[in-house]
């Protein structure tokens, strides 16, 4: 299985990373190299093996549904690229 240039553009779109056509070609070759390398996994028999999502089996902790975080909006917005009146600014999304 080998990626085409269209595949690379589609993945880049999914990942929200702009990619030029010159870059896409180089990227395709490198991604195909990595995918060829990981392809060896396909040959392994894993029938009946449960997937291991985490290194240590732990159950998700629960806590009371109470507010634990202080309000630090000003500190967090001070490092944002663009804010106004306590809101993060982005290009218009609703016409």
């Amino acid at each position: 299985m080998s990626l085409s240039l269209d595949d690379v553009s589609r993945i880049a779109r999914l990942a929200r990373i702009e990619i030029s056509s010159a870059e896409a070609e180089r990227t395709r070759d490198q991604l195909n190299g990595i995918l060829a390398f990981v392809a060896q996994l396909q040959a392994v028999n894993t029938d009946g093996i449960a997937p291991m999502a985490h290194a240590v089996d732990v159950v998700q902790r629960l806590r009371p549904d109470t507010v634990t975080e202080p309000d630090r909006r000003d500190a967090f917005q001070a490092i944002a690229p663009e804010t106004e009146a306590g809101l993060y600014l982005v290009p218009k999304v609703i016409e």
Partner: protein
Amino acid sequence: MINASLKELASALAEKKISSVELTTLFLDRIEQHNPMLNAFVTIDRAKALATAQAADQKVGADRTALTGIPLAHKDIFCAEGWRTTCGSKMLGNFTAPYDAHVVEKLNAAGMVTLGKCNMDEFAMGSSNETSFFGPVKNPWDTACVPGGSSGGSAAAIAARLAPAATGTDTGGSIRQPAALCGLTGIKPTYGVVSRYGMIAFASSLDQGGPMAKSAEDCALLLNAMAGFDPRDSTSLERPTEDYARDLEKPLAGLRIGLPKEFFGAGMDDGVRVAVEAALAEYRQLGATTVEVSLPNSGLSVPAYYVIAPAEASSNLSRFDGVRYGHRAAEYGDLNDLYAKSRAEGFGDEVKRRILIGAYVLSHGYYDAYYLKAQKIRRLIAADFTAAFKDCDVIMGPTAPSVAFKFGEKSADPVQMYLSDIYTIAVNLAGLPGMSIPCGFDRDLPVGLQLIGPWFGEAQMLNVAHRYQQATDWHRRMPAAFAG
């Protein structure tokens, strides 16, 4: 003083032979002198460091710990309030952390003094420090060589004696491999022992912070201060507090060392093999026995890792959107264009590659073939270790297949670079503790011996490493060019 152990520094401070301000000044001066050559630090703040040192000097009695007043450096993956925290990326080039990572909070509470933030591979993705936006770190043993990665800045800083100790993180070998390549001791604890809160996420099911220093004893003292339950990390483990230094002096008689035959086959440089074999001979002298074990699926660890880690990275790094923090492109059209341009400009090539691989293996129609398959193989790899630990107490082998390599030697081919972590990655997949200690030289460059313990076996591993370091002096060697 620059070669002193943390214990020696602590007693010098307690006996007022030196103040923390003097000690901090000594290391800040060395950073100023040598960092232009090594590029180990990306941020230094003399005033902030000295203010903390001054506060440490004022602490008395019960307010003092075994580490009060001792300076250290943080890998720039750890958020430290008021410090620029870049993770080696243009994306966070102007990011000032608004809070402390749990590890930073704990080391601050212990009274340690932050000298600065250490360079690293971008978002910890690399094994040579060549992917840092801030330029590569150089290996103090040979500045034409890489220091390893991704905690390469931390490793170079300690090796050149610009800091007595540093923090690191290890997702696939990022503490152990640079420790090996720079002649240091580093330990990656069992997954869940050290909180990931405030440690910028790469692959969350594998990431684990740990100490890097000159000796196992130093690492034990640091781990005592770094480890502990933290409710803010959902995978932090609730366990009784441990003293990781408690068994340091235990004799090694009767210790069973497992040698995985897969780690001693082709692929390891002869010079590395000679040094590792000599270390094993030393261990037999100390009363240990060696037994061959097998990790039959360990050869699958690198390909499994390069499915799992990029998948988790593509998800974790989706938070960098140019909206709430981090780089935002100067010009953009709609919201999607803002995301795509900010991310294209903010991320470097290796990070983009891994995000794309991750997005692909998680995408519709491919999830079962890649991600689920890799997770099943992960269980096989972990089961290999469980079986091996029936016959031994600790596993040993090389940390890396070769000593430090030259800049550019492996950077053209991503897969070649990935294979430099061939002996370390299985440990992360299984969640085990792993360690690297210096065990000799090949072509004048340090060789690392890897120790792998069973889950929560840190105290014993530190004991095993410490006894070796009492019998040998590899860990005391330092690069001559930085002796002055």
